[in-house]
């Protein structure tokens, strides 16, 4: 194997593929990054049996061939190289990497032990890459991180024709977002539960090209995996990941049917105020929100310790209400909302609040909702 490649193109592709390398590989070869050199340039691959990454890039290939080298090390090296063409050559059981006057020699790992990457399922449709990354980032704010409840560490996507819904919950809050896309079949109807962390990383890393292809096999085919592909600097990037098993809870019915108090507040002011007041909130306590007479009063802390209080303007429609939330959960929700004015809709103090952005007259509602359960206040 022998090839010559642009430093930036290589570094970019290696860094991207190395993201999904396992930290503690169950078998040593999984720490490897597979380099295949052929007529169409290079293919770089990593795989940990859950998630695979595959990057293609243009290169001047002199000799075809395949090698497996330590992915982490190759990523560190390529990131640090001077801005000159890179030449890699297989010499016996080692690979030499030359860039300008810098020269590295790397041990190879046995290619024959490396597992075969899963097939990408057939493409189901495409979405705009920035819209996709944005919708995913909003959705994952509510995803669980507790490995004891694996189902809740996923984002459920529901495809219904030209709309993809994204749902995530950690039992304390729930995010629900929507994304318009172009399915290959107009009446496509599919659902899948995708590990939230992989989905978030992937969506964020595929914004270089304008579109992302989503490939999800209908149930019973494709062995429960989903694939994403996008364009990048000099090639393509493709990730597959295994779907989570288990039944995602029926969450849509959790949205209350009626609202007794609706408050509209300037988002930036509310975020600042929550941050300030929560400085004195002890762990596992609430920031109290009291809505009355066009004013939202925030309180935190206890009489035994420090206390804080602050009032901000609010456009309140409906009865007075006093409730309280985990300040971080509240900030997560506010941070996920795009609009500059937020709407908080309540039924009663012990029921969830529905948070959404106030969409300016004439604009489309992007449909993002964040449902948050309160903390029970001391009475």
């Amino acid at each position, binding site marked *: 194997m022998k090839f010559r490649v642009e430093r930036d193109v290589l570094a970019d592709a290696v860094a991207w593929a190395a993201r999904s390398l396992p930290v503690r590989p169950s078998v040593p070869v999984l720490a490897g990054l597979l380099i295949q050199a052929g007529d169409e340039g290079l293919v770089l691959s990593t795989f940990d049996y859950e998630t695979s990454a595959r990057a293609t890039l243009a290169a001047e290939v002199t000799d075809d061939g395949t090698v497996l080298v330590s992915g982490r090390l190759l990523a560190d090296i390529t990131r640090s190289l001077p801005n000159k063409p890179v030449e890699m050559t297989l010499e016996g059981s080692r690979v030499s990497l030359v860039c300008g006057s810098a020269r590295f020699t790397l041990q190879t790992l046995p290619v024959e032990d490396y597992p075969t990457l899963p097939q990408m399922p057939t493409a189901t449709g495409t979405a705009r890459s920035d819209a996709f990354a944005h919708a995913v980032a909003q959705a994952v704010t509510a995803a669980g991180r507790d490995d004891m409840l694996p189902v809740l560490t996923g984002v459920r996507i529901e495809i219904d024709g030209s709309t993809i819904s994204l749902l995530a919950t950690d*039992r*304390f809050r729930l995010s629900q977002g929507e994304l318009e896309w172009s399915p290959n079949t107009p009446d496509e109807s599919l659902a899948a539960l995708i590990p939230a962390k992989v989905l978030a990383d992937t969506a964020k890393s595929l914004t270089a090209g304008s579109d992302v292809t989503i490939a999800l096999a209908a149930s019973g085919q494709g062995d429960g995996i989903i694939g994403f592909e996008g364009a990048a600097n000099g090639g393509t990037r493709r990730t597959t990941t295994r779907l989570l098993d288990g039944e995602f*809870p029926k*969450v849509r019915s*959790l949205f209350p049917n009626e609202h007794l108090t609706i408050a509209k507040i300037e988002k930036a002011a509310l975020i600042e105020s929550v941050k300030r007041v929560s400085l004195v909130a002890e762990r*596992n*306590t609430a920031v109290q929100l009291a809505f009355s007479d066009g004013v939202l009063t925030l309180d935190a802390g206890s009489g035994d310790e420090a206390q804080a209080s602050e009032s901000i303007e609010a456009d309140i429609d409906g009865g007075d209400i006093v409730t309280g939330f985990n300040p971080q959960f509240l900030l997560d929700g506010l941070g996920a909302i795009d609009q500059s004015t937020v709407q908080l809709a309540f039924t009663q103090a012990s029921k969830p609040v529905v948070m959404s952005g106030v969409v300016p007259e004439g604009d489309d509602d992007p449909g993002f909702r964040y449902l948050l*359960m309160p*903390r029970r206040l*001391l009475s």
Partner: protein
Amino acid sequence: MSAVPPGAEPRGEDACTILHVDMDAFYASVVIRDHPELRSRPVVVAGGNERGVILCATYPARAYGVHSAMPVARARRLCPDLVVVSPDFGAFAQVSTAVLDAFARVTPEVEALSQEEAFLDVRGSRRHAGRPREIAERLRAQIHDEQRITCSVGMAATRSVAKLASRRAKPDGIAAIPPEDVTRVLAPLDAGDLWGVGEKTRDRLRRIGLETVGDLVATPLALLQATLGQSAGAHVHALAHGRDPGGPSPKFAAHERARSMGADRTLEADLSSYDDVLVELLRLTVKVTSRMRGSGFAARVVTVRLRYPDRTTVTRSRTLADPSDVTHDLYAAVVGIYDEQCGRDGGVRAVRLVGVRVSGLQRSAGLQPQLRLGEPDRGWSDADRAVDRVRERFGKHAVSPATLLG
């Protein structure tokens, strides 16, 4: 109440503003109170069966050389007439809470060391509660009247000396060691009698010829530090001089900061099925959580202990996102820990001891629990409290999880 001239330093017993109150043979006293027919018999409170360990022995039992932490089987050899009683943690918690309340009426500066002993700082209580000895006498009378158990009180200017004094007061008495007597009284004591000097430290001191507290007082700080290390040396030096290593006025942690609660069970026969282990874990979780609720605490950390037939022990913990006193929540964590351990062991291993412990305790009264989506208004927490009330009234077997029946 006698007045002190303003500005005068209190002396003698009046300088003994730290009280160490220690229930006499606490668990056993509570049991005897409820079973007066056992009053003159040698009684021990011990976990369930012959492989169990003694938690507390009455004074008649102690006369046979029986003491806590001794296996029941060995105690029986020492004292064939031994009466073994199972602990009633609900009753212990009730007494303990009532006693702590009595303390709190004297001073807010209460540091509970366990269910049965606490330090009281009565420096600021002079005006409303009287001189230290008056306070001590009144507390003893009150606890005896209200709880029908006895306690002993050690009085001193520091916690470490108060702790030594209460030992001299036992059983059912008061002993004071005023500052001017500290050196004389402590000098003949074995170094190991000092609170916080364990066996290892004692052995190291012996190796350089230091046996009594008097020996320690005569030893320069630098030598103690060379032998025990900087901080341990300073620690022992302070203790020997009757000072508290934390300084003269340690901040009294409120008794909210009690450290942990737990229950262990050594099994009559090793358990080798997954379901049987879970049943035992549930039994212990129910026990610990009802005790915890009885004393008004919620926990943030759950620890499971398993001992295998080869006597190796594993201890694994899990931290909850939110403190809880709900049996259901804590049991879910217990099961999670056990499942993970089975994964690590490559399957279900036989166990001879299981234990459940909760720590990171906080007063549940101050909690603002994070509610869950779709949770009914009245949830597991209310169910637990209802069960606790039924058990309080009709006994602990009146209501149990169905898995624990039969």
